[in-house]
């Protein structure tokens, strides 16, 4: 008797939960929907007094005006930064994570503590001093054929991204799952360190590398603050900076701004949806405390 009563109530609760979740899902999808539909709307649609839920007279005019600016260049810069940061992070972090997880060496605990403490610090605070550091690292500018500094080059964004210890931490978590016996067997068989890493360790931590790759790619693509501080000239802007400046200049030209936002959002959302399984794994493993 009691049982049927409680299950009846829980059915009601279940329906309530689903209704709320669906409403929330709509609310969370809506901004992306509004960006994409907005990018195809005419100025008349945007200014209409009644909300235009769908562009009835779709136009490409916003995109034409967007590509009159160096938007392709911005997109290209973003891709270069994200891909380079991804490769360098995966390479350095998988090597370091393996050493931290599987090697016993002097200073291991100290180093690990240092990495964890660094991660707890506000990432953006060190960007201001990084600006000074980058402005003092000499760098040869091939475009102008003269010496300049690393500030305002794509490297100024890539290098600090690789330095952030989250990747090392994540790869350490994945490397812990490698059975130590296998490594010992390889050593007994006379396999060198590099061979052991390449033929035994790397294949075993591949899912972790995949997770780190997609995680780094998405986060670098969207790391607005670092880009804002480091990239000052229009030809080195990323797509995020491009839209931000568009908004600053043409505050009420929402069609144009939404076209820029679409250009920034659609590629990264597509990549996320393709690789979301790895992504989830990366987030989850990064949280397990070691």
């Amino acid at each position, binding site marked *: 008797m009691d049982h049927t009563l409680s299950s009846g109530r829980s059915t009601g609760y279940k329906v309530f939960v689903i209704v709320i979740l669906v409403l929330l899902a709509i609310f969370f999808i809506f901004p*992306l929907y509004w960006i994409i539909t907005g990018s195809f709307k005419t100025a008349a649609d945007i200014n209409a007094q009644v909300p235009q839920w769908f562009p009835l007279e779709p136009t490409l005019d916003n995109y034409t005006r967007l590509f009159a600016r160096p938007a392709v260049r911005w997109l290209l810069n973003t891709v270069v930064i994200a891909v380079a940061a991804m490769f360098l992070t995966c390479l350095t972090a998988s090597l370091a994570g393996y050493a931290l997880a599987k090697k016993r060496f002097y200073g291991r605990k100290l180093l690990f503590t240092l990495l964890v403490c660094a991660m*707890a610090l506000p990432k953006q605070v060190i960007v201001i001093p990084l600006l000074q550091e980058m402005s003092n690292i000499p760098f040869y500018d091939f475009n102008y054929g003269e010496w300049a500094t690393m500030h305002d080059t794509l490297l100024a964004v890539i290098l600090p991204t690789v*330095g952030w210890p989250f990747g090392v931490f994540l790869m350490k978590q994945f490397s812990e799952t490698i059975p130590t016996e296998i490594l010992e067997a390889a050593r007994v068989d006379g396999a060198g360190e590099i061979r052991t890493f390449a033929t035994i360790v790397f294949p075993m931590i591949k899912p972790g590398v995949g997770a780190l790759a997609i995680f780094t790619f998405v986060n670098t693509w969207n790391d607005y603050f670092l880009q804002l501080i480091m990239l000052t000239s229009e030809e080195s802007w990323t797509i995020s900076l491009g839209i931000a400046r568009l908004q600053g200049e043409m505050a*009420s030209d929402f069609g144009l701004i939404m076209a820029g936002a679409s250009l920034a*959002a659609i590629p*990264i959302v597509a990549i996320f949806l393709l690789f979301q399984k790895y992504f989830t794994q990366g987030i*989850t493993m990064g949280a397990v405390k070691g």
Partner: protein
Amino acid sequence: MAQAPAAAKPAKKGRRSEFSGMSRALVRRETISAYLFLLPSLIFFVGFVLVPMGICVVYSFLDMGINTSGTTFAGFQNYIEMAGDKVFWQSLRNTVVIVVVAVPAVTAFSLWVGSAIYPMHAAWRSFFRCVFYLPVVTGTVAVTVVWKWIFNPFTGLLNKILHTGTLDWLGNEKTAIWCIILILFTTSIGQPIVLYVAALGNVDKSLIEAAQVDGATKLQVFWKIKWPQIMPTTLYVLVITTINSFQCFALIQLLTSGGPNGSTSTLMYYIFDVAYKYQRFGYANAMGVILALIIAAFSALQFKAAKTGNE
């Protein structure tokens, strides 16, 4: 270095000593090879994390800016100035308001969503997880500019559907900060939900079944069994959400530039403003040091609270 520390502290997972069963030569060889593996990563970490941290602390004691000729040692001058800087205090207050509202809201809400979608079919679970992660992936700038349009007094959707005329949501001291908290909320809950779904999957099922056999209600099962077991996740969610909320910047810069009347200026935005507009890097870095200390204090507090709560 001369002796292998055979009596090292007992490590976790039943490992008796870090170096047990290893000869001294082996330990040395392992140490060398370990540092070679670590080297590429350490170059980046030291060069672009530790060095800027050091610069931050050192510069916080320097006086530099467009109005000062050259760089001079200022002692604690920057810190003293901060104590009397009204904008600093207002920005700190706004930041704390954002953190105090957003962190509990994000944590509670993501726990609720996590528990609601966890028992669902795998496909639905992954669908909802994706949907709530969408604003994070879309990117702060893209999300922010669309919200700026939605809040626009003349062409924005909000006034059109609420029939509120030309109410200026972002230009009003009372509403602006709440608009920012709302957007921050939508871009913050994606990761905690993923974490909670994973954590709930790791809860010991035999304990839940045993409790159900004993006639425990759903609420009792949640508070007595699941809650203590997902506590580490809750702690992690609290800490990362606190760190992220304290650093709220892009939303402010793109939506309100700290206005109206500084009512939405956050510490991170003020640091940026001081460094960029006035080139006062010494003062900006001093505030950076204070922000880092505040965040560290909040994190320590949360760890302590979680520990006592678990006992």
